[in-house]
């Protein structure tokens, strides 16, 4: 019979018991927390990505409030009203995450194009949308046979059919330090840019990270994707495609020449990040060229009516 003074477990056994209990309790707490927070986390990620697309499309301002188009390519603050229709507002109201998602679902619709410029939907192509978006985020949707692109609809009240206001293409690139991800939004003519945003970048703060700053991004409005030739006309089949980040300011270096229409100011001290952005445009837009030509043609014939 053990003496009453002998402890229940030897020191080593106690240590083992203690560690096992500790590990079990820690793992339990963390697992519970992780599963409880999983959905908010995924929503937060999706919201962030979608916000950036809306910023590129000038539906959301980089400062957080909604925008509607005003006369002459300016934008003014707007607010959320029933079902996602935006009305102009005096104050800059910051919408909630659910409101942003509602507006996104109402006005943005993802679809796929292939190398010939033919459109299809995820359903028809038999591709799972969530899996596709998650799997090819890093390697780039433009590398796939079916390439991701978004249709942006206009702001109309409930019940009316909206017209296509523009398109947005996701961009992948390599900055100075790490990969950069963003969007470019352009008008239905397949050429004029509405805006751009960079939602995932690890560039040098204050230098390369300026690509995520509203001030630098604001110069993209009205630029063209295709480079004009010297005579002012654009040959969509062969012109270089993509916005170029030049060294120095466009107003000083290029003035008002045709090349200035698809160039933006470089950032002092961030040439390599700027080059990364230029390369991202060039490489990501090239596979969409047939589609851009197609929509440009139909835009032209639509205009001619």
């Amino acid at each position, binding site marked *: 019979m053990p003496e009453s003074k002998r402890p229940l477990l030897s020191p080593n056994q106690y240590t083992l018991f203690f560690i096992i209990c500790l590990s079990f309790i*820690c793992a339990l707490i*963390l697992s519970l927390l992780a599963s409880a927070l999983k959905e908010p986390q995924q929503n937060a990620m999706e919201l962030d990505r979608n916000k950036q697309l809306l910023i590129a499309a000038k539906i959301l301002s980089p400062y957080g409030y909604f925008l509607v188009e005003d006369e002459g390519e300016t934008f003014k603050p707007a607010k959320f009203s029933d079902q996602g229709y935006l009305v102009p507002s005096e104050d800059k109201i910051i919408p909630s995450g659910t409101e942003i998602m509602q507006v996104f679902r109402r006005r943005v619709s993802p679809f796929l194009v292939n190398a010939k410029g033919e459109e299809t939907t995820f359903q028809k192509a038999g591709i799972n949308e969530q899996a596709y978006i998650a799997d090819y985020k890093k*390697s780039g949707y433009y590398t796939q*046979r079916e390439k991701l692109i978004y249709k942006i609809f206009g702001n109309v009240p409930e019940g009316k059919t909206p017209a296509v206001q523009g398109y947005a293409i996701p961009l992948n690139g390599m900055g100075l330090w790490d990969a950069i991800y963003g969007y470019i939004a352009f008008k239905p003519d397949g050429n004029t840019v509405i805006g751009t945003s960079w939602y995932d970048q690890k560039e040098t703060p204050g230098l390369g990270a300026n690509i995520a700053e509203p001030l630098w991004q604001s110069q993209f409005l009205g630029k063209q994707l295709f480079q004009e030739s010297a005579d002012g006309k654009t040959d969509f089949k062969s012109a270089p495609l993509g916005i170029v980040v030049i060294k120095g300011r466009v107003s000083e270096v290029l003035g008002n020449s045709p090349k200035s229409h698809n160039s933006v100011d470089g950032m002092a001290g961030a040439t*390599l990040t700027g080059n990364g952005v230029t*390369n991202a445009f060039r*490489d990501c837009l090239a*596979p969409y*060229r047939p589609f851009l030509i197609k929509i440009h043609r139909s835009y032209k014939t639509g205009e001619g009516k």
Partner: protein
Amino acid sequence: MWMGDFNHFNLLGLVLQSVFIENFLLVNFLGMCTYLACSTKLKTANGLGIAVVFVLTVSGVLNWLLHRFVTGPGALSWLSFIGVDAERIDLGFLEFLLFISVIAGFTQILEIIIEWASPALYMSLGLYLPLIAVNCAILGACLFAVTRDYPFIPNLIYVLGSALGWWLAIALIAAIREKLAISNIVPGLRGMGITFIMSGLMSMAFMGFTGIKLANPAPPQVATWGEEPAAENEEPILDSRDPSLPTISFLSLSH
């Protein structure tokens, strides 16, 4: 998994990047505490440095395996060979805990082995090992390597390079501190104050290395767009990649 899209030139670039351009101590600021608070001599700095090189390289590799087979996205898919479908289970939230446990555990085992194998070595090096377990640089390098998704060999090179860079920076700072100790410094700044300012100047010097880009796999040539449209009848989609693009992917599996 082993080399991904990296070629040998990229590995050289990776060494340069982790030792100089992204020097762990002077650019990412990890690993200062243990050093600043306790050593002013070059000898101690070297001891610390060697210990860190060893611990970081081995832990870096162990943690890569951990990330690849346990905590990374889709990591548990190997369980399928015993019939369990665990691909969608995401244990990522346990990563911090497991990483630090591996580091602390390995440091402990290493200490025991050194004490058993060579008491002389233990005398000179063994004192630093507990300090190193909590060195920000070790956990930091493991976490950075994991966020960048390197394949095995580049990961090994990256952690080794980071440790070497850390050692280099520590040795440089210690050497300067030895001289500073006998210099005539403003009383308020003596000791820690001047050490920080000096580290700042060194950090500026290391900034001069920015922009050397050998470490990343080559970007593809621009996809040529010819006049002919793609073939009329395409094979069924087994591989979803666009066949008109070159096969080296821009952002390889490693990034």
